[in-house]
């Protein structure tokens, strides 16, 4: 008899979660951020509903500041048969020209947090899949797989529903919406192993290559297009780097690396001494509790 490995079990659990959502929610959507976790989630969704096309659209909440490689992969995915992609940009952020150079944390707040809320409201999506994992961050470790948000998209950690066995209560009150995290129980290593096993295409930025970079406040940033502003004394240097996580390019720190295959990445990861979110400027705002605070405000 077939012995299921831990990846088999994680896969089965994620598929189960997606099917429950589709069976019980009115209008689900999958948040697609183009990163490796999104790639895994999309792959799982295709498996879950095979041979049917995805029974929900993908939603990319765009900030207009992603890496060019990310937009390229996004457009390639959108062109696949059976995939419907919605791209949403917060019109206010767009008209005010909100950007990571002039507006600090307002950039993330308006483009991502507000943009997401607006998009969910506009299309009346009542359940949104997200690729967050519990191993990423302490407050995520306590969040349910089915996480309810009130009409203002706020999360209340004290009012979470108990989740027993694999019985998910998907019933929501008027105005409430649900964030669903099918990858809750995956770790970063699981994600990479699965990408390797299933040969999932990911953004090339995860692999090391010579890239134009500048060093700023301890982060190695990539100069991805002409909008990158250089401070006095900064020079663009070509470095062999890759990214552990991807977001807006002026906010994503790269690491020096020689890893050009998934195996190399895993080897580097095992030897690494810093966690994945460390390269993200977003968590540094308010110390240890910053992610929890952002989520109470409606961040995914």
């Amino acid at each position, binding site marked *: 008899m077939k012995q299921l*490995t831990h990846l088999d079990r994680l896969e089965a659990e994620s598929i189960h979660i997606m099917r429950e959502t589709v069976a019980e929610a009115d209008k689900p959507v999958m948040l697609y951020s183009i990163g490796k976790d999104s790639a895994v989630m999309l792959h799982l969704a295709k498996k879950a509903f095979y041979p049917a096309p995805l029974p929900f659209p993908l939603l990319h909440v765009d900030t207009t500041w992603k890496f060019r490689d990310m937009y390229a992969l996004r457009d390639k995915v959108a062109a696949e048969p059976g995939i419907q992609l919605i791209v949403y940009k917060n019109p206010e952020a767009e008209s005010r020209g909100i950007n990571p150079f002039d507006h600090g944390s307002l950039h993330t707040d308006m483009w991502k947090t507000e943009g997401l809320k607006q998009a969910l409201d506009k299309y009346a999506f009542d359940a949104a899949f997200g690729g967050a994992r519990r191993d990423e961050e302490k407050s995520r470790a306590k969040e349910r797989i089915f996480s309810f948000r009130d009409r203002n998209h706020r999360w209340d950690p004290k009012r979470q529903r108990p989740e027993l066995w694999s019985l998910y209560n998907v019933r929501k009150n008027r105005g409430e919406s649900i964030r669903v995290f099918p990858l809750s129980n995956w770790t970063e290593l699981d994600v990479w192993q699965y990408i390797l096993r299933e040969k999932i295409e990911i953004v090339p930025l995860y692999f090391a290559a010579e890239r134009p970079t500048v060093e700023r406040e301890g982060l190695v940033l990539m100069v991805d297009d002409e909008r990158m502003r250089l401070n006095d004394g900064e020079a663009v240097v070509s470095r062999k780097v890759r990214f552990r996580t991807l977001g807006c390019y002026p906010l994503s720190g790269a690491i020096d690396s020689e890893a050009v295959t998934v195996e190399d990445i895993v080897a580097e990861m095992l030897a690494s001494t810093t966690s994945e979110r460390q390269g993200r400027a977003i968590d540094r705002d308010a110390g240890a509790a910053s992610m929890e605070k952002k989520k109470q405000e409606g961040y995914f």
Partner: protein
Amino acid sequence: MNAPADIRAWLVEQEHKELLRFITCGSVDDGKSTLIGRLLYETKQIFDDQLAALEADSKRHGTQGQKIDYALLVDGLSAEREQGITIDVAYRFFASEKRKFIVADTPGHEQYTRNMVTGASTADVAVLLVDARKGVLTQTRRHSYLAKLVGIRHLVVAVTKMDLVDYDQSAFDAVVADYRSFAEQIGIGDWIAIPVSGLNGDNVVRASEAMPWYSGPALLDHLDVVPLEASADAEKPFRMPVQWVNRPNQNFRGFAGRIASGAVSPGAEVRILPFGRVSRVDRVASADGDLDGAVAGQSITITLADEVDCSRGDVIVDAHDPPQSADQFEATIVWMAEDELLPGRGYWMKLGTQTVTATVQAPKYEVNVNTLEHLAAQTLGLNGIGVAEIATDRDIVFESYDDNKALGGFILIDKLTNATVACGMIHFALRRSLNIHRQHLDVSRETHAQLKGQRPAVLWFTGLSGAGKSTIANLVEKKLVARGRHTFLLDGDNVRHGLNRDLGFTEADRIENIRRVGEVARLMTDAGLIVLTAFISPFRAEREMVRKMLPEGEFIEVFVDTALEEAERRDEKGLYAKARAGELQNFTGIDSPYEAPEAPEIRIDTTQLTAEQAADAIVEELDKRR
């Protein structure tokens, strides 16, 4: 962490890791968070930046002086950090060479029974923490009982803080002796005790040099070899609750679900319950090509050889070894909500992929989780555990929880708030629901109705006190009788003084009042009558319960819509004045809610229509439904 020399070989090895889930029980004082922090640290799950943050935190909030406080690693939310307690279930991940582990970390405080039950529901193993200085406490017994209740078969008693008793064997032996007698008493067979120090790491991942007298395995070594629950599930007969029907086009009709137990392969004879049709599995379809077979735990899509009826909520099972269907059960219930159980009220019950309406009887007894005594109980409050009978509004496919967790475990959902209010574990179906077929009557309800030349119905008038329900219902009955209809009016006067004389006005009693009225009304429709009822019936859930008792289309909800201010202004019986003065308790609209119908068959706005006009409108509507 050091990268293995040959990463490819290492990754292949990793692919064959198993997954074990366990729960840790105990309070912060028992060194639980410290133990988990130590496991994460020793298995290299903690990175330098996290360690640096931890050192800073340790100095600010820590309880270990200048030492690193590992507990701070696992106390997640900032609210908790301030209070110094863990308030919810948190999940952690680490891996050994053999297995990947998911840890459900739950608090030990009594008020959080529900969190422990939640964490334990998916666990293969429970690790109970016992402080070597304090020995087996009430809390230890409670956790053991709860672990056994949710069907965890393997227990580990981790005797912590051995460093604080100088690694003394007699302290450990005393705990073991104590626990042994308790384990025998409640029937825990498979358990092991391990002396550990989370602070110093003794016997956590490697044998302790400080305790040469202990020859058993370290905690992690033991967790590496405990049998997995999933392996046992694979040996049982095939069951797959259908989650979703996959029908992209005319040529494909697949049934998607996760195998709860057993195995399946093309050609297997299956039965679709509760309907009972038999077919054969045609394909086990997957994006990677059809599979030769699949086992418990896998999420699959199968097609059947025949065009049989099958939808979400049905269960596809081994044709030769099917489970039972029934609509009445005995179950253990763990209550998880602030609002207590209301016996007789309809709750949503979700079991597998089946969702039905269920009512719970008053418990046979409640269990005192500290003494394990059985206590008499009328209801269950937050964290209450009791045994009760449950009735569902239709047959469901089930197995006893001991045999199959996926078909024996359920949750109850409040129909109004949609909160998960309880979980339960089915013991068995009640005999009367399994074996006794309802008395077959030669004179059917159709016969009764035909004899009277009418279609039976219940006109259910609902609205605030003083809205005009009785007045309008009386007029309607007169008009119907004038047209030769056979009717009967049930109202507070003829029911409260007789059948429901024993009921008061608490929420629970009001629910029972409506349930009885509903049952009487149903019997009267069986007799062919048109029944009119005039009760405030403030709760949507109870009105829906009555609707479900009756055949489709026979329940006609008449919402007598009068605003509270208007009803209070009329106050013909002077009741509102009394309620305002505090002389009447639980008065609807004043200190008890009225939940207006969302989609009544008939809505009467009494500010627009006179009672006469309203009655005419209702009779006219009833005529349309003949």
